[in-house]
C-alpha cells in the first residue's frame, strides 16, 4: 500500500453527523447537531462535555451503534473508509471488538453477571483473533497481566461481582485488547473510581497507547483525566462541537466561553480561589434556539448571539471555535475571583468527638456470648477531634474510609459502639436522634449526596421546605410562605419554584433546595455528605459558592466530606484524612496539603490530576482496595510505600504534633515529602 493512500484517508471520520429521536409532537429532536471531526491513526483525542452534551451518543455512533429510539438525521461516520451506518450487522460484528473496541463506562454493569471473567475475555478472542482454542487460556492470563491485575489465573475464574470497581475496569480493558484493536473508544472509564485507582488506570492507558500505537477516543467530563491521556481535545456543548484544538490550547487557554467557564469552575489544588460557577443549565435537546446554544449562560454574549448560530471557524492558533466573539474570550477569567482567606475563628468549641467507634456489623448471638463484641475491626475506630464555631472541617478519604459513617453517627442515625460526642458547652449529644432535644435536633442538620434521593418525589418544594419550618419554629400560613420564599432567595432560586416537584428541577437546583432545607433550621452545624459529587462539574462550583456565602452570613460550622481533595481544600479551614476508618492526619488545610504529610496523604495528593497536559501525577502506592482494616497496627500498613517494618503491623502509630494543631499518626520520624 502506498504511504500516500494511508495518509490521505482519515482513520475515523465523522462528517456533518446529526442524530436525534422522534419527539412527542412527531418532529425530530436532535441530540447531536452537525458534528464533523477526524481522528488519525495513533492519535489520542478527548471528547469533553457534561451531561446532555451528547458525547456518549457520539462515541457509540463511531461504532455504528445507536441506542433504541435514536436515528441518524443526516451525515455519516466512517472507520478506515468503511461507512459504519450502511453496513450489515455481520460486517459490523467483525469490526466491533476486533478493529475498534469499546471500554464502557460502568464495567460492573457491562460484564455479564453469569459468565466468568475468563470466559468473557475468551469470547472476544474466539471472535476476533486467529488463536487456536487451546491457546486461549494462556492468552487470557497474558492479557490480565498486561492490565496489571495481580493473580490473573484466580481473577479469570471469578465472576464480575466479585471484583472491585477498579478491577472490573481493568478487565474491561483486557477484554477490549483481546481483539488487538487499531482504535479504542473509552466512555468515561474512570468515573466512580477512587482517586488512586483512577490515576493508575490512566497511566495504564497512556502506556498502552504508547506501546501499541492504537488510536484512542476518550470521552469524559473530567478535564484532569483528559489532560493526562489526550493529544487533541474536542469540547462539546448541547450536541455540537464548540471548541477543537491541541490539549495545550484547549486546556491552558480555551478559545470558547463555555470551555473557559468550565475550566474556571473546577477547583484546582494549586489555586486558592473559590472556583467560579457557571450559571444556568444547558438547553434540553430540541430546545436550542436559533442562535448560539450557550447564549443564556455566556457573559460576553450580544444580541446577535441569540439569533445567529455561529460556525466552527479556525483561529490563528490553529484551534477551531464556534463563537461570534472568539476574539473577546480573554475577557473571561480562568480562575475564581473570591479568595478563601485563612479565617480568624474564635476558640469556642462547637463539637467535640472523643474516641468515637462505630460499626455496621451487628454482633451475632455467638459473638455476644463469647464477649467478643468489640473487635478492633470496627468500621470507624477511635476518632478524636474538635470543631470550632464557624469552622469548616474537611473529611477526606477514599471508599471505605468511614467518612460518611462518621456523619451518619453525628446525625444520630447510627449509634456508635462507644465514644462520645459533645456540643458547645460540654453538653453530651445523645447518640440516637430519638433521644435528642428539640434544640439539639435543630442545631445539627445534614445534606445528602444524591439530590434525586434526598427530596421526597411526591412533595412540592414548598412542602419540603415547610417541614423543618413547622417542626422547629411552628410556622404556618403567611409566615411560612414568607420564610420559604426567603430561603429560596438565599439559595438563588426564584419563588416560582415553590410549586414545583423535584422531578421538574435539575440536579443542581435540587441540591440547592436541599441546602435551603438544611438552613431553614438555622443550624449551628451542617453535615455535608459528598454533596457535590453527584453534580456536573460546572454546577459544583455554584453549590460551593453558596455554602461559602451562607457560612459568612450565619457563622455556621461545616463538616464537609468529600473524596475530591481539590474541593475539600477550597472550602475547609481544617482537614482530617481518614483511611479505613482511622485518623491518619489532621490539621489546618495549608499544612495538611503541604510538605509534611502522612504517607497516605502524600499518596492521595500525588494522585490528584490537574487539567494541565504537562502535569503528571506521582503514583507511589498500588491501587488495591481493602475490604476491612487490619486487626492491629497502622491501618495503612498493607499499602504504605514508606513502611518501616514490623512495628507498622503491630503497634498503633504514635501521635506526632506539629505547629498549629497539625497532628500526624505515624511511626516514621521524618515526615517530609
Amino acid at each position: 500500500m502506498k504511504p500516500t493512500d494511508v495518509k490521505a484517508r482519515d482513520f475515523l471520520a465523522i462528517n456533518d453527523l446529526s442524530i436525534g429521536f422522534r419527539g412527542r409532537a412527531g418532529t425530530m429532536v436532535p441530540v447531536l447537531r452537525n458534528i464533523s471531526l477526524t481522528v488519525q491513526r495513533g492519535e489520542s483525542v478527548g471528547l469533553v462535555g457534561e451531561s446532555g452534551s451528547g458525547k456518549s451518543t457520539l462515541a457509540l455512533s463511531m461504532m455504528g451503534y445507536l441506542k433504541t429510539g435514536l436515528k441518524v438525521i443526516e451525515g455519516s461516520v466512517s472507520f478506515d473508509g468503511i461507512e459504519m451506518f450502511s453496513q450489515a450487522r455481520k460486517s459490523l460484528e467483525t469490526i466491533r471488538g476486533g478493529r475498534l473496541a469499546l471500554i464502557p463506562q460502568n464495567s460492573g454493569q457491562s460484564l455479564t453477571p453469569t459468565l466468568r471473567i475468563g470466559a468473557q475475555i475468551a469470547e472476544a478472542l474466539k471472535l476476533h483473533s486467529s488463536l487456536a482454542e487451546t491457546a486461549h487460556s494462556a492468552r487470557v492470563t497474558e492479557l490480565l497481566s498486561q492490565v496489571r491485575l495481580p493473580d490473573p489465573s484466580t481473577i479469570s475464574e471469578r465472576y464480575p461481582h466479585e471484583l472491585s470497581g477498579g478491577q472490573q475496569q481493568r478487565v474491561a480493558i483486557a477484554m477490549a485488547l483481546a481483539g488487538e484493536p487499531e482504535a479504542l473508544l473509552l466512555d468515561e472509564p474512570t468515573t466512580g473510581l477512587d482517586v488512586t485507582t483512577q490515576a493508575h488506570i490512566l497511566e495504564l492507558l497512556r502506556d498502552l497507547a504508547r506501546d501499541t500505537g492504537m488510536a484512542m477516543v476518550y470521552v469524559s467530563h473530567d478535564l484532569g483525566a483528559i489532560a493526562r491521556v489526550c493529544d487533541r481535545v474536542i469540547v462539546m456543548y448541547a450536541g455540537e462541537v464548540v471548541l477543537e484544538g491541541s490539549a495545550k490550547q484547549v486546556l491552558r487557554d480555551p478559545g470558547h466561553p463555555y470551555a473557559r467557564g468550565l475550566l474556571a469552575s473546577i477547583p484546582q489544588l494549586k489555586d486558592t480561589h473559590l472556583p467560579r460557577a457557571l450559571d444556568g443549565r444547558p438547553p434540553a435537546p430540541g430546545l436550542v434556539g436559533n442562535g448560539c446554544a450557550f447564549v443564556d449562560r455566556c457573559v460576553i454574549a450580544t444580541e446577535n448571539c441569540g439569533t445567529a448560530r455561529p460556525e466552527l471557524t479556525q483561529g490563528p492558533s490553529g484551534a477551531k471555535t464556534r463563537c461570534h466573539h472568539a476574539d473577546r474570550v480573554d475577557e473571561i477569567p480562568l480562575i475564581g475571583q473570591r479568595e478563601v482567606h485563612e479565617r480568624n475563628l474564635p476558640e469556642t468549641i462547637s463539637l467535640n468527638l472523643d474516641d468515637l467507634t462505630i460499626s455496621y456489623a451487628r454482633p451475632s448471638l455467638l459473638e455476644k456470648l463469647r464477649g467478643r463484641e468489640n473487635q478492633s475491626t470496627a468500621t470507624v475506630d477511635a476518632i478524636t477531634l474538635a470543631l470550632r464555631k464557624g469552622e469548616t472541617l474537611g473529611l477526606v478519604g477514599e471508599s471505605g474510609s468511614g467518612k460518611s459513617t462518621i456523619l451518619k453517627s453525628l446525625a444520630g442515625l447510627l449509634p456508635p459502639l462507644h465514644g462520645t460526642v459533645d456540643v458547645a458547652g460540654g453538653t453530651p449529644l445523645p447518640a440516637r436522634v430519638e433521644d435528642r432535644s428539640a434544640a439539639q435536633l435543630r442545631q445539627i442538620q445534614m445534606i445528602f449526596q444524591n439530590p434525586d434521593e434526598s427530596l421526597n418525589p411526591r412533595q412540592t418544594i414548598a412542602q419540603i421546605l415547610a417541614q423543618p419550618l413547622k417542626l422547629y419554629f411552628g410556622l404556618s400560613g403567611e409566615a411560612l410562605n414568607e420564610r420559604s420564599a426567603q430561603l429560596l432567595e438565599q439559595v438563588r432560586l426564584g419563588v416560582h419554584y415553590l410549586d414545583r416537584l423535584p422531578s421538574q428541577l435539575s440536579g443542581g437546583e435540587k441540591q440547592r433546595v436541599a441546602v435551603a432545607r438544611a438552613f431553614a433550621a438555622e443550624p449551628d452545624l451542617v453535615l455535608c455528605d459528598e454533596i457535590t459529587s453527584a453534580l456536573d462539574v460546572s454546577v459544583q462550583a455554584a453549590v460551593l459558592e453558596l455554602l461559602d456565602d451562607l457560612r459568612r452570613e450565619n457563622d455556621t460550622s461545616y463538616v464537609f466530606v468529600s473524596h475530591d481533595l481539590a474541593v475539600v481544600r477550597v472550602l475547609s479551614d481544617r482537614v482530617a484524612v481518614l483511611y479505613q476508618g482511622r485518623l491518619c492526619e489532621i490539621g489546618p488545610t495549608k499544612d495538611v496539603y503541604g510538605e509534611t504529610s502522612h504517607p497516605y496523604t502524600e499518596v492521595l495528593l500525588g494522585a490528584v490530576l490537574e487539567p494541565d497536559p504537562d502535569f503528571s501525577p506521582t503514583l507511589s502506592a498500588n491501587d488495591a482496595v481493602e475490604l476491612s482494616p487490619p486487626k492491629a497496627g497502622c491501618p495503612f500498613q498493607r499499602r504504605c510505600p514508606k513502611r518501616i517494618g514490623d512495628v507498622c503491623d503491630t503497634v498503633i502509630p504514635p501521635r506526632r504534633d506539629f505547629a498549629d494543631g497539625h497532628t500526624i499518626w505515624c511511626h516514621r520520624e521524618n515526615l517530609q515529602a
Partner: protein
Amino acid sequence: MTVTTSYHRPRRLARFGTVISDILARPSGAIGLTLVLGHLVLAFIGPFIVPYDFTEMNSGLMLSKPSAAHWLGADHLGRDTLTRTLLGGREAILVTGIATPLAVLWGGLVGIFFGLAGGRVDEVLMRVVDAFLSLPWILKMLVLIVTFGTGIEVLIPTLAFFYGIPVIRIARAATHDVVARDFVQAARARGHSRGTIIRRELLPNVRDALLVEGAMRWSWMLLAFSSLSFLGFGVSPPTPDWGLMIADARGFMSFSPLGVLAPMVGLSSLIIGINLTADALAKALGIDRAQKAPV
C-alpha cells in the same frame, strides 16, 4: 413579595386528572376503563332496564332459543337469560367492591407496620404469612364459609381477610424500599416523629404501589367469588350470578350454549377490563410490575 397559599389543592386534583388522561391515552387503558365503567353503570341501572323479573319462571320457555321476546333465550327453569345476565354482576361487584378496599387497607397497614418494625418480629410474621399462603385459597375460604354460612356478611370479610394477606407482602416490600431512601433518613435526622414520617414520607410513596395492587386484587377477588359461586359455595339461588349461571347451564350446553356463553362474556369482560385498567394504571404511575403472583 406575595406568595400564593393555595398551592396544595390544585396539585392533588391536577395529578388525578393527569393519571386518568394518561390511562385513556393508551388503547389498553381506554378499553379497560370503558369496560369497567360500563359494568359499574350496568350494576346500578340494571334493575331498571331489564325486561323481565329474574325469578319469573315460565315452564313453556325452558331452554328456548333466542326470540324477539327473549333476545338470549331462556334457561332450564324458563327464566329470561338476558335479564339474568345483565343482573349477574351486581352481587359480585357489590361484594368484591367492598371487600377489595378493605383488603388493601388492612393488608397495607399491616404490611407497612411490619415493614417498619423490622427485625425478629418482621421475620416471624413473614414465615406465618408464607405458611398461610401455602394453602390453596379455596381450602381456606371454604373452611370459613362452611363454618359461618354463605351470606354476604360472611363473604365480604372472608374475601377481604384472605386477599389482604398478599397485600401485606407488597406493602412490606414497598415500605422497605422507601425507608432505605435518603429523604426518609433526612426526615429521621431532622427529628420528625415516627407518625409524621409515615404520614408524609412513606404513605404518598407507597400509595401508588397499593393502588395498582388494589386494582389487581379486585380482579382476583372476582375470579374467586365467581369460582365459589360456581362450586355452590357463594351466592344462593335464585340470585342471578354469572358463576352460578354457568354452573347451572353447564349440563344443558349442547342444547343451549347461550346459557353459558352469555354469563361468560359478562364475567370475562369485567375481569379483562379491570386487568387492562390496572396495567395502564401501573404504567401511568410508573410502577414496575414484573412479578404477578396468581394468588
